[in-house]
């Protein structure tokens, strides 16, 4: 089961920038607020109060990134306490600022155990405020998506973090003991579920189908003086739930959580490219694990074509690296699916060309179903799969081990087991392509099976696998 891809590699996990040392070494003063930051928060605060979504978006996507690049490459932004006086100590603004603050630390630095826990607290407060229905803002969809996406990402990251106990300091272990509730799986799932329910997003989507509600038409925004925050967080939480369930290996329930979103069409989920990609990536992956290869191939094909056409427009965006990464992973998954379930008509020409460029040799190997083939399946699966988690609380007693790879190993093992079952059917498929009728005797000869001593046996490709239906039988004499 050895994988040629190091599952633990930090660069696989990180965003665009390598983690650097904690800012305390670099002379970081959390209380120092540069003028540009003052200006930034003052303007952002004003735009949020005035519900000026366009300006908010420009500042969120543009100014924040530029300032981070210029001034905060290796240190966090100023602390929220230092910034609060410039924004009337507004409670909600401070929660939003802190959310961005932690996200920046995760993206460009390396969060400490304490910071991870504080970030959890911040999400609890932020979601708490939203769930109480007292929020009156309109925020850009990109920001709201990033919140949910980051929430799930930090959860996944924390599960990895707390499953690596071997080299933890006593201080870190103490933190884990003391704050057992931080990033607990119940909390994460229940917040996402609560956002879905409180936002009534299922009902909104139902009513929209009947023409009783405007949602997609307004991109989720509220043009009647209300707030889009709860609604959109609820919407994006459906995708968040799909993602968490995939991390747990529960593909069936994950797909159920996504079911209210019709992915056969454009929708609110396609507005923000990150949400579009995350949805289809997890949808396709879940279908692949459920052996619905044709469905997975269809959706991967669509999104890969979309990315091919439109990625140039996102080159400057902070999400660009993530887009490219997911793109590569989905080509790998497409290669796997096509090797398990060859299809000629489902892949668009340009996507097919890209696929051949990247994986033609590996696909040939995978279709041979020998030991080398398994190594390639292993490699591609390990590269492209989500970072599965062990959701249970760590056992903080000796012997302290690293068990962060257990969940991944199980999913890989079961996947390769399925590949092996497919192997039994692969040889038959090639014969079927050649003959329209064939006698049992001839088939036995070609399959190199000794006819008189054959037992009756069937090889059936289960229709639930959505692959070819193949039956052979050999006759007892």
């Amino acid at each position, binding site marked *: 089961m050895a994988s040629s891809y190091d599952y633990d590699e930090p660069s696989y996990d990180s965003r665009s920038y390598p983690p650097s040392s904690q800012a305390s070494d670099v002379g970081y003063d959390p209380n120092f607020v540069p003028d540009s930051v003052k200006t930034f928060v003052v303007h952002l605060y004003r735009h949020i109060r005035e519900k000026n979504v366009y300006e908010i978006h420009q500042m969120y996507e543009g100014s924040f990134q530029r300032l981070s690049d210029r001034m905060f490459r290796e240190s966090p932004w100023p602390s929220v306490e230092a910034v609060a006086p410039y924004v009337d100590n507004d409670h909600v603004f401070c929660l939003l600022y802190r959310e961005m603050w932690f996200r920046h630390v995760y993206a460009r630095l390396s969060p400490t155990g304490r910071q991870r826990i504080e970030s959890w607290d911040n999400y609890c407060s932020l979601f708490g405020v939203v769930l109480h229905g007292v929020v009156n803002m309109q925020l850009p969809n990109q920001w709201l998506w990033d919140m949910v996406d980051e929430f799930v990402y930090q959860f996944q990251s924390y599960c990895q973090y707390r499953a690596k106990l071997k080299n933890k300091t006593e201080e870190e272990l103490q933190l884990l003991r003391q704050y057992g509730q931080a990033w607990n*799986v*119940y909390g994460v*799932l*229940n917040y996402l*579920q609560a956002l879905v329910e409180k936002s009534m997003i299922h009902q909104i989507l139902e009513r929209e189908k009947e023409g009783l509600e405007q949602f997609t038409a307004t991109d989720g925004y509220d043009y009647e003086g209300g707030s889009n925050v709860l609604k959109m967080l609820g919407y994006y939480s459906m995708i968040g739930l799909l993602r968490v369930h995939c991390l*747990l*290996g*529960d*593909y*069936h*329930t994950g797909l*159920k959580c996504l079911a209210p979103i019709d992915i056969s069409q454009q929708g609110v989920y396609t507005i923000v490219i990150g949400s579009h990609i995350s949805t289809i990536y997890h949808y396709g992956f879940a279908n692949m*694990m*459920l*052996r619905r290869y*044709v469905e997975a191939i269809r959706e991967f094909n669509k999104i890969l074509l979309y990315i091919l056409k439109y990625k140039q427009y996102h080159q400057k965006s902070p999400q660009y690296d993530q887009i490219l990464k997911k793109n590569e992973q989905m080509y790998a998954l497409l290669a796997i699916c096509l090797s398990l379930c060859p299809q000629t008509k489902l892949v668009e020409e340009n996507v097919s060309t890209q696929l051949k460029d990247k994986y033609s040799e590996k696909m040939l190997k995978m279709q041979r179903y020998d030991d080398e083939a398994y190594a390639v399946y292993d490699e591609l699966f390990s590269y492209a799969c989500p970072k599965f988690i062990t*959701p*249970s609380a760590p056992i903080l007693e000796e012997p302290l081990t690293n068990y962060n790879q*257990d969940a991944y*190993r*199980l*999913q890989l*093992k*079961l996947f390769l087991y*399925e590949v092996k*079952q497919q192997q*039994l059917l692969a040889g038959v*498929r090639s014969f*079927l392509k050649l*003959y*329209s*009728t*064939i*006698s*049992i005797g001839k088939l036995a000869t070609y399959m190199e099976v000794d006819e008189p001593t054959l*037992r*009756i*046996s*069937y*090889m*059936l490709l*289960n*229709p*639930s696998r959505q692959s*070819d*239906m*193949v*039956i*052979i*039988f050999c*006759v007892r004499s």
Partner: protein
Amino acid sequence: MVRERESQQQQQQVSYTVEQLVAVNPYNPDILTDLENHVNEQVSSQTYSLDANLCLLRLYQFEPERMSIPIVVRILIKALMAMPAPDFSLCLFLIPEQVQMEEQFKTLIVLSHYLETARFHQFWDEAVKNRSILEVVPGFEQAIQAYAIHVLSLTYQKVPRPILAEAINIEGLSLDKFLEYQVANSGWALEKGHGRSQLIVLPRNEFNHPELKKNAVDSVPLEHVTRIFPILS
């Protein structure tokens, strides 16, 4: 009589509540015992609920000390009985590797493998050897027989008797009785084959009669399949 009905109603009420819980409040350790009871109910009343069972397996993932091996075994057997649905694999994804290494689980995985590859002879051999594990769930044999018949009906228009016998593990007089029942109630028919052999004609469906197939776009090989293999006769 009255008491029986009352307890039946109570049982129905509890199941209703469990289904509701799973739909509305699934991420909640307090429902774990209810879900375990629900599994036992599924076993005794020969019903089945995939969502409730997945919910329980998830909770076991969240709190491994509370995992009950006998309950998990029952869930897996119920999942086998749901074939051709892929429920068995769905459950395996949620069961830790160490647990799957235990003998009972290895056996169930082997049984599932035989069923997936339609090796019914080996399946029944193995099932007989492990009767003690499987006996805990009433209706197991019938469910697998129904699956075997389903597989045969995808493959054959007319099944030779020995093949049917092996697939459902019934022979002789018992098989005669079984066939009588199916002819009377399920639209089966019996024909004479070569010599004194018997052919069983299963109901027509889109798999053994491609002309019935509604949508020919997807699976090209289907037409191949029924033409390629001459029916044994």
